[in-house]
């Protein structure tokens, strides 16, 4: 039987969730035995080359590219998992949700205390750049999400246990320590 295929991505996240995935230490060797990776920053495959079983999504959606990637994941993965606070709730980036987008851009590029050398008062507007969304959206407001792994980032053990459960079909181990946040 061929190995289950996993894809991962980081949308509006900090890569912390991916670091946590790598935090499974030597079990990374077991993981490679257990699954095959497709599109993911971990193996640097940039586009889907086949249909996958599991997609792990870090980060919410803050721009149009995030939306396209997320929809692409939904198309290519049987199961989608929101990984971490940002994917589930928008997280830290969503702090901007109460502020008008123009105000954010002005602060970042025109008026902020760290703005230098912007004599022409340019707010980046190249067509190559993704378009910012009016607010940061959690993934489940864009596509159907099957599972949620909480934490910022979720603990390595939680990610590991979830992957093992998904792959083996066994019940997931949820000891207190892996979902304890303080």
């Amino acid at each position, binding site marked *: 039987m061929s190995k289950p295929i996993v894809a991962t991505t980081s949308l509006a996240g900090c890569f912390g969730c991916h670091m946590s995935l790598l935090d499974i230490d030597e079990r990374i060797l077991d993981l490679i035995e257990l699954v095959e990776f497709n599109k993911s920053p971990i193996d640097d495959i940039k586009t889907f080359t086949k249909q996958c079983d599991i997609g792990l999504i870090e980060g919410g959606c803050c721009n*149009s590219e995030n*939306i396209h990637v997320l929809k692409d994941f939904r198309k290519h993965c049987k199961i989608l998992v929101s990984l971490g606070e940002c994917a589930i709730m928008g997280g830290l980036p969503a702090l901007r949700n109460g502020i*008008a*987008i*123009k105000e954010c*851009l002005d602060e970042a590029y025109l008026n902020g205390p760290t703005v230098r050398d912007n004599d022409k008062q340019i*707010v*980046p*507007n190249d*067509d190559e750049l993704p*378009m*910012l*969304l*009016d*607010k940061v*959206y959690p993934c489940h*407001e*864009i*596509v*159907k999400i099957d599972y949620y792994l909480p934490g910022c980032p979720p603990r390595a053990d939680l990610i590991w246990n979830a992957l093992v459960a998904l792959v083996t079909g066994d019940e997931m181990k949820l000891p207190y320590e892996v979902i304890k946040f303080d």
Partner: protein
Amino acid sequence: MAMQLENIIEKYNKDKTRLMDILIDVQSEEGYISEDAIKKIAGELDISLADVKQTMSFYHFFSDKPTGKYTVYLNDSVVAYMMGRQKVKEAFEKETGIKFGEVTPDGLIGLFDTSCIGMNDQEPAALINGKVFTDLTPFRVKEIIQDIRDGKNIEEMYRSDLGEGENRNELVRSVVRNNIRRIGPVLSKDYIPGRVIKEKLTSMTPEEVIHEIKKSNIRGRGGAGFPTGLKWEFCRKAKGEKKYIFCNADEGEPGTFKDRVILTERPKLLFEGMVIAGYAVGATEGIVYIRYEYMYLKKYLESILQGARDRNLLGKNIGGIEGFNFDIRLQFGAGAYVCGEESALIESAEGKRGEPRDRPPFPVEKGYLDQPTVVNNVETLCSAVKILLNGGEWYTTLGTANSTGTKVLSISGDCRYPGVYEVEWGFSVKDILEMTGADQEDVQAVQVGGPSGTLIGPKEFNRLLCYHDLATGGSLIIIGKQHNLLKDIVTNFTQFFINESCGSCSTCRNITFQMKEKLEKILDGKGIEKDIDDLVEWGKILKVSRCGLGQTSANPIVTSIRNFRHLYDELVAGDKDFESEFDLSEAVKASCDATGRIPVLN
């Protein structure tokens, strides 16, 4: 101004627990509470600026900006909409040239929304500078705005007769109507003030009073239904330096207005009830916590308290009972439904934000200023007087075996005779519809117990009003078929809870909001089957909230799903397992506008 403020602060002896009163007075004198005033208050009361601001920012009727020389608060409850609020609102906006939430540039008129003001039987209604205007129409609005521009005072703006009864009292002078449609022990006219104090209390021990109340089996009329005798007994037994009796006259549940009518017509009965409770538990001070919306009754109620003092029904050695001292004061709120919750009410009366406390300890052990405190509804205290007069035994002959006595109902909505009805427990909803002259063919639902209660349909109209079936604090809203149940009723109720949440619990603060978004998604035709299931599931999580507000805030949605599931099913797409409301072109619009880009959407 500085002088006035000083006087106000002096009037309350620089007592920080009277911060509410101070802020209410400043707001009413100045029309707002300025930064300078806040500094001065904080300094004089020896509390921090944050202490003043956190109390101030909690209450709807306090403002840090001028709210207009004439401030209009238009009720936005469900029944107001049923009775034509939308047109009235539009008329206000048209006549003044401003939107709700704004003040005219000349500072003359401010327009604001407000939660149910307890006038459901005479909607649409508004408070203008604290006075009530009922039965508004676009035409009336035009007149009112013209009168304001002509510089008339509030009373010159009434164009109808004053209401019945004590609404005509010189100290009230209000157009509010009582609409008392049916009387019983609480509302009956044959009440002789002070008689129970003089004839009964003088020959009874406190324990005997409690015993009599227990015998009557009366349960609290504020909604929670706790046995009153037991509550008094707990408080009597609790240790404390001083004990307090609170009357809960916050009456914030949309659709309830019976306490307003009792306060207007039977205040002496209420005060006598408080004296009795005070005697029974050994309390020396009583406080009536009244919602701000009923401020127009203040002078009248104070004069009645003074009358009672003059007749030795309040004060020292009351009724000649040696050593029995008890007095009552009024405490006004400032617009917060959650302050009806007994521990929030106490917090508020202490001058703080009206955030419910963790319980236990219950107020009977640790209440106002950490002393043993009884909190009872207006009607409960009134009933206690009649129980002592006629005996606990007599009381059990009224109502049903488990729900003794009578209940004063506030009935509004689509019926011929909205108003106040005192009935024995055990009436069916069908009886009520007949009694109020509702066209039964035309009623699609009845909201029993206000938004925190239950929405029922015709199949359940034979259910009974009593603690074992349909328990209720007394609000019944009859909803005709012309209304869209989910859009007009359920959404409004859910929004009410969102507006009124104190924000302490993450469940109440977030889930209610999320549920409303989901409901709107369904109403937009974007819902799926799972959205309905989610609503039911999320409703369960709300039960872990700290107080009754959060615990019941899912009720409008959950009970409407339970009893009107077909309305939801009709709206959701049968075979889809996901549907997003997300629209990329909408979402990128603001940023493209800001940067001058043309959206590329594929």
